[in-house]
Each structure stands twice: as structure tokens, then as C-alpha cells.
């Protein structure tokens, strides 16, 4: 039972990480209509930026994450202007190819700046807590709490604020959005900023329990794509539910079956859901 509670909290922590990363990806997909294949690489950049702010600059952990999120948001706006805006009339394959270019660029950049080896980021909260008899590392509790706070703030932003509504409006009908006076350029910059900030937060949260390496984005990328496909491309609740669902499946399968089964569980769940509902849990059929 204590093992179960421990794994439940591990699953929640992992789910929080996955959710934040997946929402960033699904937002860009919803607004721009293409998958950002560099999302995993941005996760890695977010991790390294947090590391530098924490270790080299010496900022407190939470401040370092917030600053990393802001830096990534700015990078998001720059990328949108420099790379995706000029491609706006091009077919979506061009965007996808551009995102692959961005991915290679970022990986090389990180290797240049921080080297190719592993880096360890110590958790500033390295203690343990006892929850219902189970020993849980404080960092995992921090992850769960932060992820919840960010998820709630984000949902309020998207559903209540006029800027969030303008993102949703563009997702649902571009022409309609233009006609009420929403500027698609502004929304597209904002979406990139939010997406990159979220992936930075998720990387900053996970960094203390994982090692940093230039390849750290790759496995995340695969899982996050599985999550947004599972939840329905472009769907916010889909990304949230999909994120926790996949994380739980992964954690429970690797605890109770085998470590390898954890990885496999992700894709078994994905295939099972797609077999029943090919558009994903919350997917609507979108033809572009």
C-alpha cells in the first residue's frame, strides 16, 4: 500500500511535467496547425537555462524557473517572428521542416555552450516527506503543487481572459477571429511565448530528479506527442487528462510489471485509445 501511494505521487509528479509540456505543444498545434517537432529540444533548453540561472547566477530555485520561463517566452516570440511568420503562406510541411531545423540548431547550441556530457542539478528541496506512511521526496511534492498552480492559472488565462479567448477563437475559426478584430500575428506570438514558457517550467521542475543532457528532449518529445494525440490534437483538457493518464500508466507499469513495460505502456494505451476513438479523447475532426 505504501508502495502504491509512493507510485501514485510519482505518477502525479510525472503527469504534471507531461501536462505542462503537452499543453505547450497542443496550443501551438491548435493555433498554427502544425506540430512543433522542436518542442523536446526546447524542453532541454529550458532545463539548461534553469540550471545556469540556479547554479551559475545563484538565483533561488523558484525565481530561476520563473526567469527561465520568461527567457523562453522571449525566445518563442523571436522564433515566431523570424521563422514561422515568414512561412505563414507556405504549406504546413514547410513549418514542420523548419521545426526540425530548429531542433538540430538548439541541440548543437546547447552542446556548444554547456558541453555534451551530463549535468546534475541538485534539488534545493532534497528532503523527504511522509505522506500516508509513504516516503516521498520533497521535490516531487513541489512538482505536483507547482504543476497544479500553473495548470489552474493557465486554464483561467485561456478560458477567462480576453487574450486566452482570442487564442481559442483563432483555433476555432480564423476568419471569424479576423472579422471581430483579433490580430492573428499577436495571437501567434502570444501562443509561442506561452508554449515555450510552459515547457521551460516543466523542464525546470524535472531537472533536479533527472540528469541534464543534450538528448534529454528526445524521449520527452515522443511521449508528449503520444499525449496530445491521445487527448485529441489541439485540445486543452485532452492534454491534461492525457498527460496524467500516460504518466500513471508509465509509472504503474514500470513498478508492477517491469521498467521496460513502463515505456511500452505509453504506446499500448495510445493504440488502445486510438483504436476506439481515432481522433483522440477530446478530438474533433479538423481538416485543413
Amino acid at each position: 500500500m505504501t508502495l502504491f501511494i509512493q507510485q501514485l505521487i510519482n505518477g502525479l509528479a510525472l503527469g504534471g511535467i507531461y501536462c505542462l509540456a503537452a499543453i505547450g505543444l497542443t496550443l501551438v498545434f491548435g493555433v498554427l496547425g502544425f506540430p512543433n517537432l522542436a518542442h523536446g529540444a526546447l524542453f532541454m533548453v529550458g532545463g539548461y537555462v534553469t540550471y545556469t540561472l540556479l547554479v551559475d547566477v545563484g538565483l533561488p530555485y523558484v525565481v530561476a524557473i520563473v526567469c527561465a520561463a520568461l527567457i523562453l517566452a522571449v525566445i518563442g516570440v523571436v522564433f515566431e517572428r523570424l521563422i514561422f511568420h515568414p512561412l505563414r503562406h507556405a504549406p504546413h510541411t514547410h513549418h514542420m521542416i523548419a521545426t526540425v531545423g530548429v531542433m538540430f540548431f538548439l541541440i548543437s547550441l546547447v552542446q556548444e555552450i554547456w558541453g555534451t556530457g551530463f549535468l546534475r542539478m541538485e534539488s534545493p528541496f532534497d528532503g523527504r516527506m511522509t505522506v500516508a506512511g509513504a516516503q516521498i521526496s520533497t521535490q516531487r511534492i513541489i512538482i505536483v503543487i507547482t504543476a497544479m498552480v500553473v495548470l489552474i492559472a493557465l486554464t483561467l488565462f485561456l478560458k477567462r481572459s480576453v487574450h486566452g479567448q482570442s487564442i481559442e477563437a483563432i483555433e476555432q475559426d480564423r476568419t471569424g477571429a479576423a472579422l471581430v478584430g483579433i490580430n492573428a500575428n499577436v495571437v501567434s506570438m502570444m501562443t509561442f511565448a506561452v508554449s515555450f514558457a510552459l515547457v521551460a517550467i516543466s523542464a525546470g521542475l524535472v531537472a533536479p530528479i533527472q540528469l541534464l543532457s543534450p538528448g534529454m528532449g528526445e524521449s520527452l518529445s515522443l511521449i508528449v506527442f503520444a499525449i496530445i494525440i491521445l487527448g485529441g490534437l489541439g485540445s486543452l483538457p485532452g492534454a491534461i487528462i492525457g498527460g496524467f493518464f500516460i504518466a500513471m500508466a508509465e509509472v504503474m507499469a514500470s513498478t508492477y510489471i517491469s521498467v521496460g513495460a513502463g515505456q511500452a505502456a505509453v504506446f499500448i494505451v495510445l493504440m488502445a485509445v486510438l483504436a476506439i476513438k481515432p481522433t483522440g479523447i477530446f478530438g474533433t475532426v479538423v481538416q485543413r
Partner: protein
Amino acid sequence: MMTISDLSVGYGAGDVLHSVDITAAAGELTVILGANGSGKSTLFRTVSGLIRSSSGRVEFDGEDVTRSRSAAIVRRGLAHCPEGRHLFPRMSVEKNLMLGAYVGRRDRARVRTLLERTYELFPALQDKSHQSAGSLSGGQQQMVAIGRALMSDPKMLILDEPSMGLAPLITQQVFDAIVGINQEGIGVMLAEQNARSALKIATSGYVLAEGRVVLSGAAADLADNPAVQQAYLGV
């Protein structure tokens, strides 16, 4: 209020509108008639900044808006209720309407008044205000689309085939609403297949054929014109 001069527009491969001249006076109801593919929607899309003209000029409310963005045009007071409605289908009716007031959102009191006006004009929407727009009937969706355009507090409203696909009874309701809107002093530019009803409520009209204005004049004269009667009124 709106002066379109020598306007030509295309979608890449050649123009589909050729040197069109149209004027619509403030507060009047101007109808644009034309067969399918004659260029009515293209004209409207250009005027509201969704697509760019290849040459010519659009003036609205004393200002050259030919190169303006859609957002700037709505802000100047020209609202466009497009063909096919283009609602936000998974948002509630009320959210659709509130987004219609996007450019004027800072004036909360005004937005409230506009929302009340919309519900007065289309009482059916009040009961459905929390349902998603995509779940409504075609007629109700058209009402949301017109209401959303009105929420920007326009001086002139463009309506692109608002009766498309609606039952005769609903069409009549929509036309009554259009007359009501016009009587409030809002200019209306209306594209319609339903030429008879449109000419009845219009002040003046233009007939487009293959991207050119082939006839224009007072609505009553157009209704009596043998060419119009033969082509659009089935006489």
C-alpha cells in the same frame, strides 16, 4: 459612407472582380445582387480587409481603408457578417457575442448595452446563451453571426447571404431583424440570392455579373427592370 472605386481583386490567378465602383450612403440599405460566383463575397472580403485588392480604392467613413487590417476596419465601424457565418462553434453563444465586442471591450457599460440590444433583437438567443454555438439550428446560428457583428457597435454592417439555407419563415425573421437594424441608423450592405425580398427592403442596389457591375440604381427601379426581373425575380 462607403465609396469603392475602380476596385479589382483576384486570388492569385487573375482578377475575379474588375474595376468595381460602388457607393453606399450612411444609414442606407444597399443590396448587391449577382449569380453564384459573380464576386459578391470577394467584394466583401476585400472591403473588410480579409484579402487584398490588386488595384483600386476603398474609402469608409472618410478614410482610405484599402490597405488597412481587418482589426482597424472593424474599429472604424464596419462589421462583416460573412457567408458561412464563421462562428466559434465550441464556444457558447454568449462568448461568441462577447468576442464580437473584442475591439470595444474596454467600454464595459457599452458592451452590456450592446449585448442587451442583441438579445432584444433575437430573443431566441437569450435562452440559448450558454449552449455552444455549433449546436444551434442554422437560423439561430445566423442570428448569432449577425449579433456578433453588431456587438462591435458598427456604423455599417455587411451581410453576406444571411438567408442561405434557411427555411422561408426563418428567412422572414432574419429580414425583419435586418430592417430593424437599419432603422436604428446602421447602414447595411446586403448580398442576397433572394432578390425579391432584398429589393423590397433596400434603398439602392447593384447587380454584379462575372466580377463587373452591370446594373445599378434605386431598389424600386431595379425591381422594375426587365433584365433584373428575368434573371433574379423569375418573372
